[in-house]
């Protein structure tokens, strides 16, 4: 009777169906609870700060009504790609996210306000806890679009042993810096004072130089129009300075955060790095061999005796408008950046320089660092943060402007043409692009 084909016995089908249903059913039955405890509000959080999982765990432990899940832990530019994608798809965005200051206007002006105005949920109460220059980057009037987490006051990291070896004074002004560049390269033709980088994303370092010289790229006017000033006199002054150094062959071409740069640090072919406070960890973790040979100093100045500083990087936490729980999300973002215990965690494990005023007393910042010969971060960077030049604004088309800037600068470096003229190209291109996209540009 067998025909070689497998036949499920009739009873077997019924049994299989019953088993399947019984496996599925319990989850669809309402759970019977004696009490009326509300389920905690679930929030998703995207960030790139190393070890921010411990902050999330601390929050969950101390807040029974909110449960935060760190769903994504990758840095820029990948995370920005994901933000654009979920905003375009209108689904999948996290409740709380991390965005750098230079990208904030892009998101503030992006479709239906991709960011929630946290001022509506009490964020304005934090205004006095942050420096004015930082608060102005996250707020517009009474609207608060982000809670500042960290800032990046600039400083100069230098190889004190190389300066001592060639009897060159540590530069305090840009003129002295240029002279030191010539002297260092003459003493050792494999040694450069610093690297020139125009690879994707390093425009913020150049912007910091222009920021320090009172240059500005964008201004938001009160009538919703924008003024683009990329090729202003102040910006051109800065870029001409660097163009001269590059033209004389005093800068090497390593990109920032590349293996080539780390190797040059380790083997003594780069004498300084102009970077923000978070750069301290970059150098110490990538060039361990030169421990004890580096030191930190203020950034060179345009006017001797007048100390002005700027910032590179730093980020803030935002609440994205796809959230279903804006109040709780705001609560988490505010806690993340003002709770003293958490800030201590962020400083210690994430290596950030906190934006909150009160956090600057944190012992983790005042601890001497052996890598820098016992110097503490606060020695250089507290003063730097306090003299942050005000008035620098990022615009809504920073993606385009920065890409154009990187390209123009790179061409100028390769062809040894005028850096200042490159700014003209960026200015023209940015204005054309912004107009084409629907912005009013004055």
């Amino acid at each position, binding site marked *: 009777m067998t025909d070689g084909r497998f036949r499920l016995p009739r009873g077997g089908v019924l049994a299989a169906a019953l088993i399947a249903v019984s496996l599925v059913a319990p989850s669809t039955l309402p759970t019977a609870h004696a009490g009326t405890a509300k389920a905690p509000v679930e929030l998703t959080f995207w960030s790139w700060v190393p070890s921010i999982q411990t902050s999330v765990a601390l929050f969950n432990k101390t807040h029974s009504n909110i449960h935060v899940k760190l769903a994504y832990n990758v840095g820029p530019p990948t995370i920005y790609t994901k933000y654009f994608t979920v905003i375009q798809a209108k689904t999948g965005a996290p409740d709380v996210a991390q965005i750098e200051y230079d990208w904030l206007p892009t998101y503030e002006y992006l479709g239906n306000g991709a960011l929630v105005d946290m001022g509506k949920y009490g964020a304005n109460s934090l205004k006095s806890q942050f420096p004015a220059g930082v608060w102005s980057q996250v707020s517009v009037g009474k609207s608060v679009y982000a809670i500042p987490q960290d800032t990046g006051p600039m400083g100069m990291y230098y190889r004190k042993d190389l300066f001592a070896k060639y009897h060159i004074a540590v530069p305090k002004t840009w003129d002295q810096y240029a002279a030191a560049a010539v002297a260092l390269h003459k003493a050792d033709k494999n040694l450069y004072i610093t690297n020139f*980088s125009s690879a994707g994303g390093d425009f913020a370092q150049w912007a910091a130089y222009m920021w320090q010289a009172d240059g500005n790229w964008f201004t938001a006017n009160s009538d919703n129009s924008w003024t683009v000033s990329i090729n202003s006199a102040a910006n051109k002054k800065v870029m001409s300075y660097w163009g001269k150094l590059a033209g004389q062959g005093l800068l090497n071409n390593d990109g920032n*955060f590349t293996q080539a740069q780390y190797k040059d640090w380790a083997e003594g072919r780069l004498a300084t790095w102009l970077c923000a406070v978070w750069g301290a960890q970059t150098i110490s973790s990538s060039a361990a061999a030169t421990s004890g040979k580096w030191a930190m100093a203020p950034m060179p100045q345009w006017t001797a005796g007048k100390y002005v500083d700027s910032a590179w990087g730093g980020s803030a936490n935002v609440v994205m408008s796809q959230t279903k729980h804006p109040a709780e999300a705001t609560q988490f973002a505010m806690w993340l950046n003002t709770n003293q215990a958490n800030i201590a965690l962020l400083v210690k494990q994430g290596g950030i320089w906190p934006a909150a005023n009160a956090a600057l007393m944190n012992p983790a910042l005042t601890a001497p660092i052996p890598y820098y010969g016992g110097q503490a971060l606060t020695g250089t960077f507290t003063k730097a943060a306090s003299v942050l030049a005000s008035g620098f604004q990022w615009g809504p088309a920073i993606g385009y402007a920065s890409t154009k800037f990187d390209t123009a600068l790179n061409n100028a470096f390769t062809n040894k043409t005028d850096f200042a003229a490159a700014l003209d190209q960026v200015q023209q291109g940015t204005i054309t692009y912004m107009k084409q996209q629907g912005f009013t540009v004055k």
Partner: protein
Amino acid sequence: MSSSSPPIARLGAGQPAMRRPRGLRLRQGSTPYLFLAPFVILFLLFFIGPILYAFKLSLFTLHRHPSLNGATNTTTFGGLNNYQRAFGDADFLSGLKNMIAFGIVQVPVMLFLALTFALVLDSPFVRLKAFFRLSYFIPFAIPGVVATLLWGYFYTPSLSPVTGLFTKLSFGNSPNFFQPVSHLLASVGNIVTWEWAGYNMVILIAALQSVSAEIYEAAGLDGCGPIRTALFIKIPLLQPALVLTAVFSIIGTLQLFNEFSVFNQGGLAAVEPSVTPNYYAYTQAFTYGDFNYAATISFALALVTFVFSFAFLKLTSRGGE
């Protein structure tokens, strides 16, 4: 394939064919479609679907409304406006120009190499054929990102063992492999050739296997030595396979992306987004946030690719007859 006998005839010997039940016949007719269904469903969902969605995106133009407080970016139906903008866009056109210049040099060089390897490995004189076949094919097996990083480090003066040789041998400074754009294209051309020559070689070797031995015998009787056999017999017989690999290479060249993206994001070189149209589309979407225009660029590129491949096939089929 021989026609399959209906299953019922095998079930019980001696049963007349007339007693074949209806249900069985239907099952037999629909079985091939059932086997195809998983592929077709996934193909429609993840290949055709996104293409249709992207085409819809490309017909709309993005308008930003530059104010805070509930401002909404809108997209209006622009018809073919975006395409007009794309074909007049200097960045897109320069990317196309770069890729055409790249293809004119790199594709013939790579196919020449692949052909040489294939012919040599098909000749009776070479020992260890399997070993050489494998070693020429291995670069293809290395993931593109890894290969690009590898070569990128070779090209970076302070990291590379090779560039140090230039100064040691007193050739002066090692050339800049990343700047200007012509050098960058040559460097990427090197990587692409290294990766894909083996792949194309394998296709050509497979085509050579299908040549019947009688032809070689006849050629031998006519007095053809191995080199003349290769030049005048094998190469003409390989023409279909060569056309195939050439079309693949043309399509691949116009879509170049990996190498430039890894160079830029890996900090190895500053690469402007307009260097290839594909990278330009990516930048439009993920750095500028303009998905509509990015979709337009992608379709415009696809159109150009189609035109080139079609023209090439037409050219070669007319010549070949």
